[in-house]
């Protein structure tokens, strides 16, 4: 009975020794652990750098676009004022007083009723009231490019739908 127990202890000891050797054999080397941490740190740093880079890129592009919007708004206002100026200038050049002076300078005189000859032109109708509405022209401002407002999910969804439609 005693002999049996000793044998069993020896077996257990042998097994433990084997396992210790095995664990030692598979234990990570210290330099390997350090490298793993360095890699993880670098990965984190690169990720943060990439996010920061993308953020900076988007921000700078947004700033440039914003600046462009401001410039375009100013140009639109300038153009509108320019149009108004030109229209008024044209009206000044064609005003009754100016036209009368020009006509008189060219030797024209007002027509007397007895000097007017009337002709009957079948099918002719004199022009009626002036039409100033340009209803066929849209005055709505162009829609903002979807790239400036679309979410990533929205973009993905659109691409998927387009792909499905093909």
């Amino acid at each position, binding site marked *: 009975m005693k002999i049996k127990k000793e044998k069993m202890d020896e077996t257990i000891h042998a097994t433990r020794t084997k396992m210790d050797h095995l664990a030692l054999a598979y234990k990570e080397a210290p330099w390997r652990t350090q490298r793993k941490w360095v890699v993880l740190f670098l990965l984190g740093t690169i990720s943060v750098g990439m996010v920061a880079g993308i953020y900076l890129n988007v*921000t700078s592009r*947004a*700033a*440039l*676009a*914003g*600046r462009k*919007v*401001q410039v375009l*708004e100013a140009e639109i206002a*300038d153009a*509108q*004022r*320019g149009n*108004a*100026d030109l*229209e*008024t200038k*044209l*009206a*000044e050049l*064609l*005003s*009754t*007083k100016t036209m*009368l002076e020009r006509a008189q300078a060219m030797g024209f005189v*007002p*027509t*007397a*009723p*007895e000097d*007017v000859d*009337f002709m*009957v032109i079948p099918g002719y109708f*004199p022009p009626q*009231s*002036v*039409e*100033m*509405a*340009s*209803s066929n*022209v849209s*005055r*709505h*401002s162009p829609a*903002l490019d979807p790239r400036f407002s679309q979410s990533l999910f929205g973009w993905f969804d659109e691409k998927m739908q387009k792909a499905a439609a093909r």
Partner: protein
Amino acid sequence: MKQQYQWRSLLLSGLLGIISVAIIFQMVRIQTSPQAASLRDQGDMYQGEYQTIYPPRGEIYDRNGHLLAGNKTVYEVGVNLGELRNPQTIALALNVALGMDAAQVITLLTQAPASQSYAYLKDYVPADKIAELENLKDQFDAQDTGGENVPSLAGLTFKPHLARSYPENDLASNLLGFVSREDRGYYGVEEKYNDLLAGQPKLVWIPSDPNLAEQMPEVPGGSNLILTVDREIQATVENILDTTLAATGAENGTIIVMDPKTGEILAMTSSPRLDLNEFWKFNEIYPNGAEFNRAISTQYEPGSVFKVMTMATALDTGTVAPTTPFFDPGYYEIGGAYIHNWDGGAWGAQDMVGCLQHSLNVCLSWVADEVGTNNFYNYMQRFGLGRPTGIDLAGEASGRLKLPGDDDWYQVDLGTNSFGQGVAVTPIQMVMAASAVANDGKMVIPHVVKSIVTNDRQYNTPTQIAGTPISAQTARTLSEMLAQSLERGEGVAKVPGYRLVGKTGTAQIPGPGGYLEGVTNASFVGWGPIDNPQFLVYVWLEKPQTSEWASQVAAPVFQRIVERLVVLMGIPPDSIREVVAGQ
């Protein structure tokens, strides 16, 4: 040893903890302090600004699309105080270019509070003056060596904006009105349609940070108006009025030309006129605001042109017919007073056409008496007298028609009213009333706006009938009577080839102690051609000097206007129209 480190660690942690809490506490305290709010406000000032975007004021065109009121770029001149280098140079430049007081400019620039970043100097500066200043600024910039006392216009800024401009200057000024520096319309169309023309201003946040820049919200411009006025007719009428005033020595004058079928005003003018680009001279020219447009705002006793309404009433009620005889003894007693003719004479046997032709007060007083008080005043009210016509112009007066029952009405008023004395009307009221006779009994409301163009849509204003005070038959009969009386007369209101209708009116002018001696109001109302009236002309001359009689001063004006109207409106003579109608 281990114990020693433990104590040190605890002490250090405690200290750092206390410092952290103190820092956080201080941060919260600073963030919530009143000074922080003030600093935040100051910071917000540089983040951008709220700007009220005023849409461009709507333009006004004549019926053929000629611009009568538009917009023009003007500039606000100011100084960015942060960039200011030499206040003396700026003061001198503004003194030379804009006539500003140099000392005042220097004071404004040097004594501005530290918190002020911009100094306003002048607004509504025209573009040519700004070009001069910009040129000067460029020259100084080119010569700038960066020294201390170098001449420099650095900081001087010009902010452009639109302001009202009238390319025709004083043309149709009485009718258009004007726009003040506060962008508010005064008088005429500008005031009546101010809300439509001005549009809806919007308060918009304009960020300085381009990251926050957004598309500006669309601010729809004011509506454009197309008037019924014809620029050529208006200019012609104004020219005739100016020459008439010079020739007759009349104190003032008013002329209205209207399409009697639609109520469209083709021309409307009164003296004096105002160059609308110099509206600040308003107070010099018009001591009384009601004189800006006498055609609608000044009421007067019209005199014998009123007989048209009296005769229309009598014909419509069947009281008289064109051939009804009347013996004129030279006076007519009514309400205990005697009515006399304009010449004080007795004209003997007449018919109704003769009464109109010779403009007999005695006859028309008898006619009104025969019509009856109630009938007479009912008809006068149906003709729209004593209340505004509703013309779409600001500042219309209502006139005064005394009615039986009023404290100041007496029976004699029936007699005097019949020939246009003792009743106050505006020229536009007379035009509207006369339109009933010219337009087969249908009285039209006069209007000056033909179309409103808004959001790319054009809305045309329809003809509005104010009522039918008389029948079509009465209107035609009376037109024929007036045409005959005009033809039988001396002919100063005749135009060869065209059969016209007209009536003169010479009225005494009431003063503080009764009627004034030797001065009159001379009027004329007429229309044509009789078979298809296309124009109705009203002329009013105040206190003409060459003659006190309308037949001598007002009737020729009607003739001159019609001579031009038939050409400008392309109205063929009666003979041609008859041929065309017969085809």
